[in-house]
């Protein structure tokens, strides 16, 4: 699932002949010789940015408000889109105030004839990308994207009894799953928490599914009911042990659930999707040296090397930005980094090439990364 360097620089000048020998590759070579130092696709991009075969992009075809601060964005992906499995996420790259930023969003759309997909974004106060998507994105704009990824999906053989536990925007991957599979599922309990009734994303559709007995919907409003605890969970879903469970929501909620399932020896039946990593206490920072770029950057101990590198203008490979996809991995030749989630320090001695995830690693003293 790791796509190393998936977000890496696509070199304008580098040869990227499509596979397959014969006349096609010869024709491509000739075309390349015609457009050198650019690639033929650089000219195609001028007229149709969705056609290119080397980067995936999408056009925004619709934007629908869901709640006060959440919106669904319908995207028409480019030619090379390979489709997704319900529950998976895509990464999209948008230019926020001129700066390309990448974030992951779960696919929320159900089956569609037109090949479009949708993502649903909840604007977070102070959130650079989510606010941009909800407030400033326009129909017709082009966004960068990547192929779908993620393991938060239903198994091939559908379990008989299912429990879905969601909080806030954590409903998104679950909605994507339900829209595709609700007809094939027998016994689904959806336990969803949101601050107030009007904050529930997809409220009408969920309540209708509940009213039609397609699912058992338990809606909790934390402003009124407070955060859910294990006692309440036991009361609301007494048969949770018998259910294959998918959970997505705030870090606190997921930690509580993981602990509970672990204790009962049922950890293997709980599938979670995190939107953000849970972080440990930060340590001392240090200097990161990018060996190929020959750039030295001061990094504090509390922020991922990925963020700081990007801010300094280094083209960093990235993915989920929370330690699950390995899209941000770089070899560390020397020095130490600290895992922001566990506080654990990893060190390399000269000559090593230990692969580290820059999105969840902070500098811990000096370290040399190959980029």
């Amino acid at each position: 699932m790791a796509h190393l360097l998936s977000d890496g620089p696509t070199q304008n000048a580098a040869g990227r002949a499509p596979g397959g020998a014969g006349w096609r590759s010869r024709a491509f070579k000739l075309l390349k010789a015609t457009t050198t130092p650019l690639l033929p696709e650089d000219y195609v991009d001028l007229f149709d940015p969705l056609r290119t075969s080397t980067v995936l992009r999408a056009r925004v075809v619709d934007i629908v408000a869901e709640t006060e601060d959440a919106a669904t964005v319908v995207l028409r992906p480019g030619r090379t889109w390979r489709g997704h499995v319900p529950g998976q996420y895509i990464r999209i790259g948008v230019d926020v105030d001129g700066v390309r930023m990448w974030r992951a969003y779960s696919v929320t759309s159900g089956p569609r004839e037109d090949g479009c997909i949708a993502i649903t974004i909840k604007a977070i106060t102070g959130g650079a990308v989510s606010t941009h998507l909800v407030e400033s994105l326009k129909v017709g704009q082009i966004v960068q994207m990547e192929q779908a990824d993620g393991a938060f999906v239903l198994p091939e053989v559908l379990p008989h009894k299912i429990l879905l536990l969601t909080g806030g925007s954590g409903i998104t991957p679950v909605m994507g799953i339900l829209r595709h599979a609700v007809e094939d599922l027998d016994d689904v309990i959806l336990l969803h928490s949101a601050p107030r009734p009007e904050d529930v994303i997809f409220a009408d559709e969920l309540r209708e599914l509940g009213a039609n007995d397609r699912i058992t919907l338990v809606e909790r409003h934390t402003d009124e009911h407070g955060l859910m605890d294990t006692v309440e969970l036991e009361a609301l879903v007494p048969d949770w042990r018998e259910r294959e469970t998918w959970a997505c929501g705030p870090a606190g909620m997921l930690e509580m659930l993981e602990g509970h399932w672990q204790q009962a020896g049922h950890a293997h039946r709980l599938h979670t999707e995190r939107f953000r990593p849970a972080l440990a206490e930060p340590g001392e920072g240090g200097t990161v040296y990018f060996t190929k770029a020959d750039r030295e950057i001061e990094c504090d101990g509390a922020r991922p090397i990925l963020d700081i590198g990007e801010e300094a203008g280094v083209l960093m490979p990235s993915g989920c930005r929370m330690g699950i996809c390995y899209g941000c991995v770089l070899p560390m030749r020397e020095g130490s980094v600290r895992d922001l989630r566990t506080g654990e320090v990893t060190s390399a001695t000269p000559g090593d090439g230990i692969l580290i995830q820059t999105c969840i690693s902070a500098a811990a003293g000096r370290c040399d990364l190959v980029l």
Partner: protein
Amino acid sequence: MTALQKKEHNPVAHMTPEDIDSLGKELDAVRAEIIDSRGAKDAAYIRRTIDVQRKLELGSRAVLLFSKYKPAFALGTAGLTVSKILENMEIGHNVMHGQWDWMRDPKIHSTTWEWDNASPADLWKHSHNELHHTYTNVLGRDNDLGYGIMRVDEDQPWVPFYLGQPVWNFINACFFEYGIAAYDLELGKYMKGRKDKAVFKRDLGKVGQKVRNQMTRDYVIHPLLAAPTGSWGTTLMANALSNLGRNLWTHSVIMCGHFPEGVETFTKTSIEGESRGEWYLRQMIGSANISGSKAMHIATGNLSYQIEHHLFPDLPSNRYAEISVKVRDICERYGLQYTSGPLPKQVASAWMKVIRLSLPNHIAAKVKFPSRRKPVTPTALPSRRVDTGEVAA
């Protein structure tokens, strides 16, 4: 600043270390202001420029398919020349400076960009960004200063070879992109046996491949594409003319940047242990601007704002115009020469200097060359303002 102090008029003699320090802080503030306000508008500017350039190139090349007809030849050649100039100057040069790296767009990034020039991006970036911009106008360190074949300062001993330097300079202008490739290869250093053979061979291979690619495109493929209409010869000619046009243009612009009268040169020892303020100072008085229309500025890749470019080589070129207002004001207050003039005047001035320096000093002294260096009176030097009891800003 020892090299300067030797000159009959030392342009920075009136400045105390404290003044230089304060100059550095003011310029740092100018820089911070631009970085803080960089955004969507600037990104749109470079994207639009790239879009226009590529469409102009495609359009011109399409027109050239019918270049056996004179109007098509004229239009296509003019369009291709302008497109090639834009590609090298406002786009290539500036992207490779990292001016647009902050956008984090891998398609418009200094580490991935390749340009339509004989010198491969990585070689050029090394010799231009690291050497020329670090050692601006430092005799013997800055290749742009005479490209190693010219005498650029009275202090350089004269030898008869220099008599021909107006001719060398003209030839260099016509084949400028190859000249650039040659000194990015550090050909001179190699010939003197001061460059690693293996490195040179590797680099030579890169340049060779690049030149082959460029030539195949301009002089083989595109003429062949135009052959069906009987336009192969005129297409070949059009490509050659547009390459020549771009060479002459870029050479002129670059010569104007550091060569006109009034621009200072420095010795190797004078820049040792330079402070931030001193570095800024050297960049300022070692560069010259060209004044003119907006179109002219864009055609020079905003290198017409050479002073601003040298102060802030990695700030987006479309912002140099607004930076120049502030820099000019700083120069006035600190009593520093802000060399600027219209293109023909600056080109003439640079050529005059080439000619003057082709002659031995004692002969050149007899010929009257117009001097453009006049002392500038500072209007608000921090050290003096403190002297008179005023509060420093």
